[in-house]
């Protein structure tokens, strides 16, 4: 292929047929890539003919750091991976280490963990909704979503002192007892929230422009989704009813009744509907959990110095973005031999090329948004 440079410095390739193909770089600094993601698009006129995601701009060597920290010392680090949904990261890690130790958190701790994790799911989906709508041009849902998220963050702040990187859970259970009024506040939030979701739906779901921008955009078939290893709402929107909370229940999920929403087509609109419905289901789980928090200890008896027996464990949870897995190898010392994190955003991002082929350039931003990635998780 010939490659020439036009006066403005753009790379222009002419294919065998003589058509112009241009490589467009959506650089690491970009308002719509949700972090430091670099996307190289090969364009044929208006259509995307191929793409490449270049990641690593936020790589911090978290997995290597884990080899030099004790198990409890590493726990705050996992919050910084998916910094939008820190509580889920903590849940996955603590449960993985508990599995390694052969211990189990007491029932009260498990229920409180479930409540906080489901609230975190709502908060993560709210961030997703606000930013996704903003990319597509709707300016207002962002502020409404953050208004609700503020309530959740206030609950976290009262519980563990932090809003974003919470380090809410400890290996073996919880550090802090729930504060007075915890149940009442969660219940009040859940009662207000259903009305709020309806508000967002009024703005977007039936809107002709929203439908035009999201229906048929970024279609991922079920077979492709399974082949690419995609998980989470992206997988469920393609029609595959797979949720780790039902398939391999952890924490206290087997005690509650909730639905797994799926979508028929696997396009952006279905992913939107699936996440909206997931927020509603999370709210139901919270309401069920608050009614009956068992009393008892919040921390298992595992001792202060953790030396798990040599072995390996893989534990996955259903984080808001998909299957978050921790593969921990222990060599019998106080520091893990290897911690490998399977981030959902990293694997889901690999489906981007499949989704973006054949779509228009203006849809690329919508497709990046609909996968719901957090670069801290993709790069670690």
């Amino acid at each position: 292929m010939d490659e020439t440079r036009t006066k403005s410095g753009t790379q222009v390739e002419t294919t065998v047929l003589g058509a112009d193909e241009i490589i467009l770089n959506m650089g690491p600094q970009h308002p719509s890539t949700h972090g430091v993601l670099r996307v190289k698009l090969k364009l044929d006129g208006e259509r995307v003919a191929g793409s490449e995601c270049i990641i690593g701009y936020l790589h911090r060597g978290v997995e290597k750091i884990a080899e030099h920290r004790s198990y409890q010392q590493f726990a705050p680090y996992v919050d910084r991976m998916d910094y939008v949904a820190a509580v889920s990261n903590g849940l996955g890690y603590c449960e993985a280490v508990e599995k390694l130790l052969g211990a189990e958190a007491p029932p009260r701790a498990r229920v409180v963990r479930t409540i906080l994790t489901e609230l975190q799911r709502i908060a993560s989906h709210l961030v997703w909704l606000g930013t996704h709508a903003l990319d597509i041009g709707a300016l207002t849902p962002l502020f409404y979503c953050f208004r609700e998220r503020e309530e959740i963050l206030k609950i976290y702040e009262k519980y563990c002192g932090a809003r974003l990187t919470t380090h809410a859970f400890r290996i073996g259970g919880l550090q802090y007892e729930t504060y007075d009024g915890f149940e009442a506040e969660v219940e009040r939030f859940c009662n207000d929230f259903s009305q709020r979701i309806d508000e967002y739906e009024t703005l977007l779901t039936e809107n002709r422009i929203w439908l035009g921008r999201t229906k048929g955009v970024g279609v991922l078939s079920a077979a492709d989704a399974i082949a690419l290893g995609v998980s989470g709402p992206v997988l469920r929107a393609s029609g595959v009813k797979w949720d780790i909370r039902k398939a391999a229940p952890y924490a206290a999920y087997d005690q509650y009744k909730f639905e797994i929403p799926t979508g028929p087509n696997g396009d952006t609109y279905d992913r939107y509907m699936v996440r909206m419905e997931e927020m509603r289901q999370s709210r139901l789980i919270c309401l069920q959990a608050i009614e009956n928090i068992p009393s008892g200890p919040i921390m298992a008896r595992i001792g202060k110095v953790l030396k798990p027996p040599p072995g390996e464990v893989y534990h996955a949870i259903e984080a808001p973005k998909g299957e978050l897995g921790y593969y921990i190898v222990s060599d019998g010392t106080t520091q893990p031999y290897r911690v490998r994190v399977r981030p959902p955003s990293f694997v889901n991002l690999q489906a981007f090329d499949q989704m973006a082929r054949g779509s228009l350039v203006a849809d690329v931003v919508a497709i990046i948004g609909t996968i719901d990635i957090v670069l801290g998780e993709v790069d670690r």
Partner: protein
Amino acid sequence: MFGITFNDIRPYIFPVIYALVIVAFLPLLVGYITLAERKIMAHMQARLGPMRVGPHGLLQPIADAVKLLLKEDITPKNADALMFWLAPLLSVTMGLVAYAALPFGPAFQIADLDVGLLFILAVSSLGIYGIVLGGWASNSHYSLLGALRSAAQLVSYETAAGLALVSGLLLGGSLSMKTLVETQDQMGVWFVFLAPFSFFIYMVASIAETNRAPFDLPEAESELVAGYMTEYSGFRWSLYFLAEYANMIVVSGIAVTLFLGGWMRPLAAVHMRVFGLPYDLLDLLPALIFLGLAAWCTKLALRLGQQIQKLVMFLVVGLFVVLAGVMAWSLTSPALMPGIHGGFWFVVKILLYLYGFLWFRFTFPRYRFDQLMKLGWQFLIPLALVNLVMIGIGLVLVQQSGWPLGITMIGANIVTLLMALWLVRHGDKVMTAPRTAEDDLPVAGAGQIR
């Protein structure tokens, strides 16, 4: 001297004065419209907006203007200097020239051209060059494409807007802006009630004409493709900004003149005298509105903390009281009253129309460019054509067969409504993203560019 006598110049004196008034106040008005946009956007988004610069942000536009004037003027090195200088100038000039034909009041019009409406359309079509040359002068492949795309959008929606206006013209019978308002006065009914579809089509087309949401992809696409305004900073950018808002006001002015009764008071045919005063009750409205605004500002002022902000707010209250006084005093002099009250109602209607613009911006997501063009060509233009034909038929029946105006217009609009419903249902198939087999392009190596 030079053989020019005073009588030669006399017809030009008042227009020049009006022109100076408009050019002097327009940037101020545009600035406060941007402030209104930010405050309204904020309140619709559950927050407050500018509050610090001046009480409730009232001095924000002035601060912004000063900042933009003092900013460094950057010209890209390889940019075409002549075009770079010319493009914002062209946009602003055309935006301002259009005000020459807008009727702010029965006597407050710079030039009552016989072809006033066409003149404004002509000037708007000249404004396209500001965008195209601006994109060209930025010396960037993508900036140029963004500009051309924006120009294509403007040209497409100009057609729809023109057709919608023509159907209003049929009702008015003349191209002169002043005659259109006077016809509405004589008929006693605003044209929006006779031809609501024309108003609707014109409203949508005018939003697209001014590149406002939901049709602002060429502007907002500056995330992905550099829009035409990217290389402009400081004062040049503020010229483009001024041009955009000036354009919005002109377009609102056309809609108000043609469809919303221009400078006429609402319910102008209704005369209610109360308390034995020789004034219409509704004519007291302007003064009452200003007094209401003054009272509300006083309430806000009393809640403010800082002394200086309180002072500025009380000045604003004083301004409103003075305006209320002017409105009330002008009731007594029949020579001035139509002019001053006409100007008031014209501006109020423009502000209401602009509120619609702002409201749509914060509520709707953006159209993608191909959807935008499809909407213009495959929905608005056919609808506008059908609307034009139906109104034409209706008027022929009224004028030559003597049918009553109201019934005929209702019938014409029902046919247009049916056409609109059919187009909407048919259009759903074309509005979703296409992904057919032939759209998939074979590229070697999934996920790899090379």
